[in-house]
């Protein structure tokens, strides 16, 4: 693991006070080269204080923006503070910081790759989760693999390592609600390359998934819509020098 690069671990957290401390400690132990920034996405519990007490830096949203907005804050932070690598680690303890060196090694080994994605399904590591969720993940994996013409096994994994190019892309534009799947498409459209590495994941230690069972149908439909809209969208992301994506008025 080459440690001369500036590395940042982004931990998006929404009411994860119970588990965030353990995640930060584990990051310190297993990935000491990484600075830790917690994105407190409008939590109403002690998430922010827990983060600060463990010595992490904390970006505190004034209200809840959703996982997409939270992770994007991490990208903006990394871009403005000159980080070369960014790894996203969930605050619920689902992602194992022991696996981060594996992601970094894969990145160093393949300099042409911009994103290393930790996959639960690449090797059969017997990830146990609800059948419906696994079915959904495999459906997305199937569709995405066809579109990007590359085998994707775990498109919903948020356990990813990004290099500088990917950081600056996603600081400008990162999908909103359930961003992981769409992010794969955005990478594809911008000719950035992604590679999967097999990792172990835990069942979440506490808190709740951003995808709850009642919402899973909405999740499926929304992501499928996003995939197909993404296919026909003329210009998915604004390049520097283009008109700003958010302007005062587009006429009437």
């Amino acid at each position, binding site marked *: 693991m080459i440690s001369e690069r500036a590395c940042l671990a982004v931990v998006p957290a929404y009411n994860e006070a119970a588990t965030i401390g353990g995640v930060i400690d584990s990051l310190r132990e297993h990935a000491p080269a990484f600075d830790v920034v917690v994105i407190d996405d409008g939590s*109403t519990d002690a998430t922010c204080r827990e983060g600060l007490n463990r010595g992490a830096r904390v970006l505190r*949203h004034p209200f809840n923006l959703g996982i997409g907005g939270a992770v994007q804050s991490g990208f*903006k*932070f990394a871009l403005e503070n000159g980080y070369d690598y960014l790894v996203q680690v969930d605050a619920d303890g689902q992602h194992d910081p022991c696996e981060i060196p594996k992601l970094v090694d894969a990145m160093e080994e393949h300099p042409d790759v911009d994103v290393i994605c930790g996959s639960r399904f690449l090797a059969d590591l017997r990830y146990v989760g609800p059948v419906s969720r696994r079915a959904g993940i495999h459906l997305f994996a199937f569709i995405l693999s066809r579109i990007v013409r590359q085998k994707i096994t775990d498109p919903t994994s948020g356990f990813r390592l990004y290099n500088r190019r990917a950081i600056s892309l996603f600081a400008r534009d990162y999908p909103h609600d359930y961003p992981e799947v769409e992010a794969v498409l955005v990478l594809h459209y911008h000719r950035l390359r992604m590679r999967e590495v097999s990792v172990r994941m835990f069942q979440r230690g506490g808190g709740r998934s951003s995808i709850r069972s009642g919402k899973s149908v909405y999740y499926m439909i929304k992501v499928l819509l996003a995939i197909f809209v993404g296919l026909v969208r003329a210009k998915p992301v604004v390049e520097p020098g283009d008109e700003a994506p958010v302007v005062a*008025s587009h006429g*009437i």
Partner: protein
Amino acid sequence: METRVQIVAIVATGALFLVLLELVRRRRLLERYAILWLVCSVALLGLSVWKGLLNDLAHAVGIFYAPSALFVIAFAFVLVLLLHFSVAVSRLADQNKVLAQRVALLEEQQRAAAKAAPGRFRQPEDEGELREREPAATSPGGYE
């Protein structure tokens, strides 16, 4: 078109037009959003005043009762306005997100600066911002 219907239509659309002008004058409505409304009310006012045009229009598309053509047109305008607002709300939501992220980044910068040079900056902790936002305990007095 019967005269009574015409009078009601003229009064209603005329009133809408005047209310819109007044809202813009008092700056309660931005010109940007008023334009579509004004266009809509002027068109409806024109159609209710100018009987022949409405009759021709209704006849051309096969509507037997001319005033119902007015409703069709009004409904079309309502749809366009709603779409317009959805677009406006999406834009506001985007801007809101960008602002919230910027606030978070600035707050962190300030916290780091305060840590580096204590005393020179206001500490966010001083104002209890880091306390959990718990619901306020039931107030003893209330508003009875």
